[in-house]
């Protein structure tokens, strides 16, 4: 076990995978010579050379498609999308091509591809570089989606994704790249896809978080004291129903904390599925703590309020636990929006 930053954990996962398997390769804009716009590929060009670590032109459709093609021929490419929004010019290759080839070839053409994209708000990159956009990927049978929340999951989910026989998207909360954490590397450090982790035990309420909301939810939980169970969903598709349902069976309450706006967010799937499956176990209405339905604002203070803060989560959880009712979000409490 070593202490490292999330971006170092990613570079370590890539290096370990490339050492283990000669078919693993990496490409994307400025991932080679510059070692990644967020330094997530430090040392890789030097160790693995320019055939396996490549800087691409600015052509996301072209290089994601190239990753798809290389994967069909037995490589295990990792394609880096610098900001999640750029998949908006390349979605076709991941969703409509990569995810369907196994189906459209009777299982004979497979696409063991990983697409990594940095996501989310918190660094002042503005409206078009701060969204999470999981929704673009979550309705595609054949495609898996995982979201790390710290160094260990950054390492372990990426290793698992590279070994997976099918396309996997890893959405990396950009704001976490510089965070430090303990990280076990090697096979023991692998985090299987499809498994959620209970990161804090409690019996009053189940809080499901993902990516950067795991630490804010944990922060709020600490302040509230015992009772709050926090589940790091880790994999969004397929998500770990068993773990979430088992937790809700114990607590009788469910709250999902999302970084992005409510409309179209992934949390509704958790709430809906848990409600259908465990209706009688619920003692109070399940609900979601999210950002408001607005584009991500640039101003630092505004951006800080946009995503649910630990304060906001604490407030809402406390009110919920006290009243058993769904609390209003800050913009309604303060009367600034409906």
């Amino acid at each position, binding site marked *: 076990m070593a202490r490292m930053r999330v971006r170092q954990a990613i570079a370590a996962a890539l290096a370990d995978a490339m050492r283990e398997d000669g078919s693993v*390769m990496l490409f994307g804009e400025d991932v080679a010579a510059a070692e990644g716009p967020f330094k997530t590929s430090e040392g890789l060009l030097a160790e693995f050379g320019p*055939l*396996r670590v*490549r800087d*691409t*032109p600015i*052509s996301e*459709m*072209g*290089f*994601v*498609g*190239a*990753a*798809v*093609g*290389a*994967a*069909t*021929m*037995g*490589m295990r*490419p990792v394609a880096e999308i610098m900001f999640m929004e750029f998949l908006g*010019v390349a979605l*076709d*290759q991941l969703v*409509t*091509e990569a995810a*369907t*080839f*196994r*189906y*459209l*070839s*009777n*299982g*004979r*053409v*497979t696409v063991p591809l990983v697409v990594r994209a940095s996501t989310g708000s918190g660094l002042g990159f503005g409206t078009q570089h701060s969204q999470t956009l999981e929704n673009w990927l979550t309705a595609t*049978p*054949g495609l*898996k989606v995982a979201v790390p929340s710290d160094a260990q999951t950054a390492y372990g989910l990426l290793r698992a994704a590279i*070994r*997976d*026989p*099918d396309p996997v998207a890893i959405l990396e909360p950009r704001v976490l790249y510089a965070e430090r954490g303990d990280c076990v590397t090697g096979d023991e450090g692998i985090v*299987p*896809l499809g498994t959620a982790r209970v990161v804090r035990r409690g019996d009053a309420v189940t809080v499901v978080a993902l990516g950067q909301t795991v630490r804010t939810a944990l922060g709020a939980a600490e302040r509230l004291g015992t009772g709050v169970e926090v589940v790091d969903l880790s994999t969004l598709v397929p998500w770990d129903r068993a773990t979430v349902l088992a937790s809700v069976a114990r607590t009788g309450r469910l709250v999902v904390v999302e970084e992005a706006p409510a409309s179209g967010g992934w949390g509704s799937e958790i709430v809906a599925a848990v409600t259908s499956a465990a209706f009688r176990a619920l003692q109070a209405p399940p609900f979601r703590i999210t950002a408001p339905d607005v584009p991500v604002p640039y101003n630092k203070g505004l951006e800080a309020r946009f995503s649910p803060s630990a304060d906001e989560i604490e407030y809402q959880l406390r009110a919920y636990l006290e009243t058993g009712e769904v609390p209003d979000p800050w913009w309604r409490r303060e009367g600034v929006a409906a």
Partner: protein
Amino acid sequence: MYEIRRFEDRVNELFARGAIHGTTHLCAGQEALDVSLALELRPTDTVSATYRGHGIALALGMTVHSVLAEIMGKAAGCTGGVGGSMHLSDPDVGLLPTFAIVGAGLPVAAGAALAFQTRGEDRVAVCVFGDGAANIGAFHEALNLAAVWKLPVVFVCDNNVYAEYSRIDVTTPLSDLYRRAGSYDIPGVPVDGMDVAATRAVLAEAVARARAGAGPTLVEAKTYRFAGHSRADQATYRPAGELERWRERDPLTLARVELLATGAATADDLTALEKAVREDLDAVTDTVAALPDPEPATMFHNVRGATA
């Protein structure tokens, strides 16, 4: 070529009388290119093609049985009936699942070539696409990427003059698409796509260039779509006389003249061959028509693989 032509006629009949669900895109008039490609490639090479893919599938060596069964949605089809006419595939003959999204096959072919280059193999990837596809972004990105990385890929534009119901001049400021190679500093070569010998020669050179590590080529085969775009399209939008002029250069006629002129075959040989093709097609059609549909469980197969 004769087999492909008769196959497309048969598909057209089956579609017209409701035995085929959905849609089909026939390649009549464009067979010379499919056949030339198949002749110039090795079994280890790989091809990405389009929804207009019956001809290339057969030319590469997929059986009439497998292709027709797929088009008819049968369990015995190459994807078990879940893909249909637009999604033929067979890795044994080097055919990736054909692409229903215009342009999507180009980056994928570049990527296949990237795998070959990275592993130091002398395999080549080929992508066939239409004139209409030359206007989409993926075309540009794939050619640029392939050029800058000198990938062993051949981009073959099957310029059959139309994209759906639009003639090329309505959508494209130049009709000599091979000239677009200049944007990437790679060779661009036009060829008479109705003529097998000419097409083979150009493809042979492009394939050899790729195999030798000298990078990609853009080949533009000038062909013509004898049928409508898809399904029931009667192609009434064609200028008068255009189809007739192109039909004079029907690749089947040209090939026949060539074969007879060079003495490679006699008229009797060809008559016998054609008869055999027709009889075989009739027999396979009957067999396939009687095959079972896939079970409902089939739709749950091959969605994802087993995790190690």
